[in-house]
């Protein structure tokens, strides 16, 4: 079934089309939610809210962009709404130190392990990191999305990145020690 057929069916509220659309994207979008949420339960809530929105607003989708991109935007926006509600304290650090370009290689780390590392970050860091590194927004856009300034976004990002690099290096050195022994 093509995306066009899926969308048309969902516009008519055909339950089997709705189910198919959900099945097509739910797992990938759950991956997105997990990166923003603090727990699996929170991620499930975000996914649920997102798909309800998808089905409620599908009539406004006109096949101008990719369906997946549209669904993903809804998921990210729903996650950000949730984050904004938490009233995060943004610590603005002037001229945050750009971490030295790290020697980190992630090749042997899978998404689950990376997710664990990302999830150790405070919610605000996590959101900025997700938006910049994975969703590909720039700092000005992130500032608009989260209601912070561009420079706050930048400084949050470099701190998030530094924290991530540190965790990864720790894990790597630990693994090396094990391999040596």
């Amino acid at each position: 079934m093509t995306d066009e057929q899926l969308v048309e069916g969902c516009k008519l509220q055909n339950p089997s089309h709705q189910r198919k659309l959900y099945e097509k994207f739910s797992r990938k979008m759950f991956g997105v939610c997990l990166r923003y949420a603090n727990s699996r339960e929170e991620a499930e809530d975000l996914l649920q809210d997102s798909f309800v929105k998808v089905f409620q607003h599908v009539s406004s989708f006109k096949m101008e962009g990719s369906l997946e991109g549209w669904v993903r935007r809804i998921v990210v926006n729903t996650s950000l709404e949730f984050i904004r509600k938490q009233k995060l304290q943004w610590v603005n650090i002037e001229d945050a130190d750009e971490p030295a370009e790290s020697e980190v290689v992630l090749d042997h780390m899978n998404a689950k392990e990376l997710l664990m590392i990302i999830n150790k970050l405070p919610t605000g860091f996590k959101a900025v990191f997700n938006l910049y590194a994975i969703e590909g927004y720039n700092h000005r856009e992130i500032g608009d999305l989260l209601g912070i300034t561009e420079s706050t976004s930048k400084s949050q990002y470099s701190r998030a990145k530094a924290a991530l690099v540190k965790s990864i290096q720790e894990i790597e050195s630990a693994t090396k020690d094990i391999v040596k022994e």
Partner: protein
Amino acid sequence: MKQFEEQFKDAFDGFEPEVDPSVWTNVSNAISSPASTAATAASGSAAGGFSAVAGWVAAAITIAAGVLIYHFVSPADSTVSKENQPSTTISAPVNESSNTSTEETTTQNSNPVAQEKIENQFVTESTTDLNSPVAPVVVEESQKVVNSESHATTVSAPEPAKHENTVASKNSEKAENSPNFTPNPAKTAENQVENAINPVLIASSHCGFAPLQVTFMLNSNLKTDFNFGDGNVAFKTNSITHKYENSGRYTVTCEVNGKQLTTEIEVLGQLGTAFSPNGDGINDIFNFGGNDVEKVDVRVYNRYGKTIFTGSGSNPGWDGYLSDGSKAESGTYFYDIFATSVGGTDFKQKGTINLFR
């Protein structure tokens, strides 16, 4: 070496963790409840889709109905009444066309869900996003596209005279013949071009118990021949309703602009139509499942729309008793089914049961 960010991005690219099934259950419940879908009608106004148009119509008719009530409540205020006169006339033919008097409309208000359920399946599917009292008025039977478009005319046409014309021509073949038929003609023209380039065959249902009535239509205004896959065909039409009498899997085909469009219809073994819960051991229970379904949720209600039985499972059965332990009397009862076929297709269906004692 790849950038740090890029490495992260790649790592998450194919990340598709398993989702707990409860999420779908919740989503499914949320989108099938009338409250949330009413919100859709309101929020969908930016769209060019059916529901948006239907939403407009719903809003327009609701206002008309409101005016009607107001008209009754304050007959003394002649100025207002006069001003509102045209609107009142508009609502009258709409109501007539669906065989509902004003009084009946009021009844619907008091029991919107039941009324909505009594409508046939296709109507329910296509109009759940409307305020339910209005829903039965808006779309009738198979000519969905035609109807929604001509109703859009109702919304945009400025003079009452035109409204009546449009309503009268509701069942006419070609809605595109009526002038100025949407609030945004430019957008619709655009859509038509899009549709012509990319035709899609839509079915009102892909699965259900025999006899199954399915409405097929093209998203474009083009007409073509339909082959229903059960030996029957229809010629030169944009939308058509066909009844499948026997169980089986059917492939429906049609060709638009040299492009072959197909869709699959799964017809399941027939449910009964009557039962006699008199304790003689014969036909005492009415079953709503069968070999072809994995799971069925069913709701049975009486002619007043009151739910008298709900069941779920692979083959739920009703023994003809009410929840207070008394026997349901002889007569006709209605049911709504929400089921999953063994092939994994979800479907909704409704029907009637005759109870004999």
